[in-house]
């Protein structure tokens, strides 16, 4: 089965689950006075679940005749592309998300930019360091000092040590 049909199948599952919640469980806790309204919190979701399921069925059953298009990248030959780099970068983003609060903006961002370039094959450490550090500091200064949006710059224990 082609990828677009697999995705349609997943969407169908989501629409059915969503529809089940909207049609059968969502209104259970509704206050009696709200039940007299012509529109309930589930009204719009009910309509959406029907439309979504119908559209997913059309794709799944191949009812709409269209030419099969291979996109920019042929997913069936994914191994021929730089898959490792892409996965590493996605992993790095997850690590960044988990580290941003505990180790602070400056260290996590500089490391993210440095490792990001490294994963992509850059080996000029002096340039990478210069760019990563200066960009990190400029963005932090702009966001925190100029725009006033708080972002902890360093880990809490270092801030405590330096008396911040």
């Amino acid at each position, binding site marked *: 089965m*082609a*990828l*677009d049909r*697999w*995705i*349609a199948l997943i969407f169908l599952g*989501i*629409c059915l689950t969503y529809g089940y*919640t909207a049609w059968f469980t969502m209104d259970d806790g509704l206050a009696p006075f709200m039940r007299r*309204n*012509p*529109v309930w*919190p589930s009204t*719009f*979701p009910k309509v*959406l*679940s029907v*439309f*979504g399921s119908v*559209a*997913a069925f*059309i*794709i799944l059953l191949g009812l*709409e*005749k*269209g030419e099969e*298009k291979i*996109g*920019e*990248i042929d*997913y069936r030959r*994914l191994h021929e*592309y*730089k*898959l490792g*780099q*892409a996965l590493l*970068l*996605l992993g790095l*983003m*997850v690590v*960044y*998300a*988990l580290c*941003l609060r505990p180790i602070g903006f400056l260290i996590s961002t500089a490391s*993210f*930019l440095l490792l*990001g*370039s490294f994963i*992509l094959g*850059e080996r000029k450490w002096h340039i*990478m360091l210069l*760019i990563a550090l200066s*960009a990190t500091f400029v*963005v932090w200064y*702009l*966001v925190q000092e100029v*725009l*006033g*949006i708080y972002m902890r710059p360093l880990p809490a224990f270092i801030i405590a040590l330096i008396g911040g």
Partner: protein
Amino acid sequence: MLEGILIGLQTALSFQNLLLVVAGCLIGTFIGMLPGLGPMSIIAIMIPVAISMGDPSAALILLAGVYYGAIFGGSTSSILLNAPGVAGTVASSFDGYPMAQQGKAGKALTIAAIASFAGGTIGAILLMIFAPMLSSVALLFHSAEYFALMIVGMSAIAAFAGRGQVAKALLMTVFGLIMATVGEGALFNLPRFTMGIMDLQSGFGFVTLAMAMFALPEAIFLVLKPKNLGDSGGEIKELRITRAEARAIAPIIARQSVQGFFIGVLPGAGATIASFLGYAVERNIAPKHEQDEFGKGSIKGLAAPETANNAACTGSFVPLLTLGIPGSGTTAILLGALIALNVTPGPRLMIDEPQIFWAVIMSMFIGNLVLLILNLPLIPYIAKVLAIPRNYLIPFILFFTLMGAYIGQNNATELLLLVGFGVCGIALKFANYPLPPLLIGFILGGMMEDNFSRSMQLYGGMSFIWERPMTLGLLILAVSLVLLPGFRAMRARATG
């Protein structure tokens, strides 16, 4: 009116106010380029500065400059990096980004600058002429009409429904609408589909979804299959637009300035709907061969939303200045600033404090001109972003997508959602599902449900559709916008 114009010019052309317009435009442009910081947050940040000045005209002139600058800056990141940080510039990325990929970044930015200037300027002229009259027309629009207007805005999905893609575009739109129902709705105040997760109470963030659907998959595709962003390798070959191109976009600019302005006048509609609607209308009335170009780097597809969103920004000042009703989140913040400065906008503003009313309008002309003068010479330098080696540029794009999501919500969970949605976006892109309809559905979903529910409550059912002629008219327009291209294609086939 002439007297008012003279009063306005006198105030707006003072040295201090001229400096404020320039400063506002510059600040707005640069901060607007950062994904995640839309005009609303930038204006909110600038309010203490504006209030500290004490002069309402000067404060409003500064904030209006920031507003236009931010919209312009948002278009730049949409065009160059496919990272629309503001809902109003999403439609600009549909054709602006493909143009940048084809090595026409300079031309795309020039068209954006000219279209924005024209939209803003024509909007200001219309504001000057029609402001008092339009405020009463805007009040005729009720929730039923707004609901119908959202449907018309969604007819933009037709623009993405290529051969064999109608069901996919529809599914993506419905999925965007489904995502918009997650969290507490404005009307019911009940958490829905949150699965008990506290972070989902306020729903998904727009910037997170926009970055995950546009910027992140694009950056990952660049990693998978390395290529330069813009095949000119950073050299700006095309900056000027040819006479033929100018002739092609002129009628679009004229039409969308007017259409965008009138949509901006409606409280609650604003730049986002204006830009999608502008795109949809122009795509659907274009000849068949030009329709196929939309979404692939069409100059018309870029000029339409760029003109419409700026004209709508100007239009949104009509209810603010004449009725004291904020037409959008941004004008709500402006209203707050005005009240803090002891100015009460409303029908008497024009009579009691004409210097404020007219100075704001005059500053719009000056602000748009300043943006054009400042940005046109800067375009070659701005477009150089694409010449940065990919080993450095891609981590920066990924970092800005993360920052956009983080700044918007100040929540690290949002970053994990971003990566999760990003992976889904990549899979959808592999399978050739059009991603813009998903975002259109998500952006318009909340507003659409609120207006639909209000209309249902008011009329006790669906009767509002046939009982309100304007609603019926708009719904017929929406259906014809979707059906017209198919009908024309059928007729073309029949005539051979």
